[in-house]
């Protein structure tokens, strides 16, 4: 009954929308990894790689997130989580390292699954904080949010990747959303909550707004600096045609 009551409130629907978006943004990198890792495989193996690799990753993700939601009820952890989340959000906006080594790559099914699994392990530990934070303690919100967004990311990986490549502003908006969640998390940590509610209730919207501004400003600045430092002109396909008749 309480579950049905919860569904009726606007706060719930806003929260659901928020958690779906946060989950997509934070799973976007998994989507890119899946799209790239499975690309060189024949179609039937592609489906298998996605099924096994992503399936295992999803189970891990759900368990870790439920644990995180519980942990976030403890004092100080939300403040720490907020700082971590701000750092994650800024890093989302940075371009690739030229020397990115990567996991051993070869074009077989097992290698692709391994890549997807390792990617999820390496990248999900921080993803979990964001989703747990956006859930704001509601298990309903958490499970619904995960159930809706995870299949989208897994089965729409290639499409998501193309969308995000074409319109990089999507990532900026996503990083901003994380900044918002981080600010909100910081203002509601049990350690400060009492004081904030009594003396500085305005922090409930100022902190999230500050989070957005911080992430977007710092992220864009660092990215622009990295781009400017890139002296050499990258050419991935240099070649010439002589114009003679073939």
């Amino acid at each position, binding site marked *: 009954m309480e579950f049905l009551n919860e569904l009726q409130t606007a706060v719930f629907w806003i929260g659901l929308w928020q958690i779906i978006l946060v989950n997509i943004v934070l799973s976007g990198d998994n989507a890119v*990894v899946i799209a*790239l890792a499975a690309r060189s495989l024949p179609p039937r193996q592609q489906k298998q790689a996605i099924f096994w690799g992503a399936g295992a990753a999803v189970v891990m993700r759900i368990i870790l997130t439920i644990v995180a939601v519980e942990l976030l009820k403890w004092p100080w952890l939300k403040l720490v989580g907020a700082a971590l989340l701000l750092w994650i959000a800024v890093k989302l906006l940075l371009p*690739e390292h030229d020397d990115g080594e990567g996991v051993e790559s070869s074009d077989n099914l097992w290698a692709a699954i391994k890549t997807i699994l*390792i990617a999820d392990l390496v990248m999900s530990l921080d993803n979990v904080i964001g989703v747990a934070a956006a859930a704001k303690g509601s298990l309903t919100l958490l499970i619904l949010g995960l159930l809706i967004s995870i299949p989208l990311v897994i089965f729409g990986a290639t499409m998501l990747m193309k969308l995000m490549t074409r319109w990089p502003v999507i990532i900026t908006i996503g990083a901003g959303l994380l900044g918002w969640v981080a600010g909100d998390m910081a203002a509601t940590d049990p350690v400060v909550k009492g004081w904030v509610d009594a003396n500085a209730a305005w922090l409930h919207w100022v902190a999230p707004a500050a989070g957005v501004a911080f992430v977007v400003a710092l992220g864009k600045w660092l990215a622009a600096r990295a781009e400017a430092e890139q002296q050499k*002109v990258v050419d991935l396909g*240099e070649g010439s045609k002589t114009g003679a008749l073939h």
Partner: protein
Amino acid sequence: MLNLLVPVDGSGPSGRAIDHLIKNFGRFKDGVEIHLLNVQHHIPYGGRVSSVIGHDKMAQYQQEEGMAALKTAMQKLDAAELKYHYHIGVGEEAGIISKYAKEKGCDQIFMGTRGLGSVSNLVLGSVATKVIHLSPVPVLLVK
């Protein structure tokens, strides 16, 4: 020799620019140096993804997308028996186009007014608009 930078993205307007190039400059066969350029966007979440997937695989993806975008332009120029160089750059289009114009010592940039991303109501696409601002050399736009 006239050195032209010709950014293309595989779109209709982009193809029309090539048709125009062939029609008006084709007669100067050896007097024109053509540099085809396609600019690919950065792969999203580049920082995080590159530590797992690795730079080479990502570059390979962008190269394949780049060659696909260059295909129509290359076919048209081949059919007209014109000589050209081709390049695939990575990053924000207008900035990279301007960088290439400087790097290759181009006298002029030759491109369509719109491309794949353009909204049909606008006369001038966003990339063309930014190139006009950033370009170190004259820009010729083909509608």
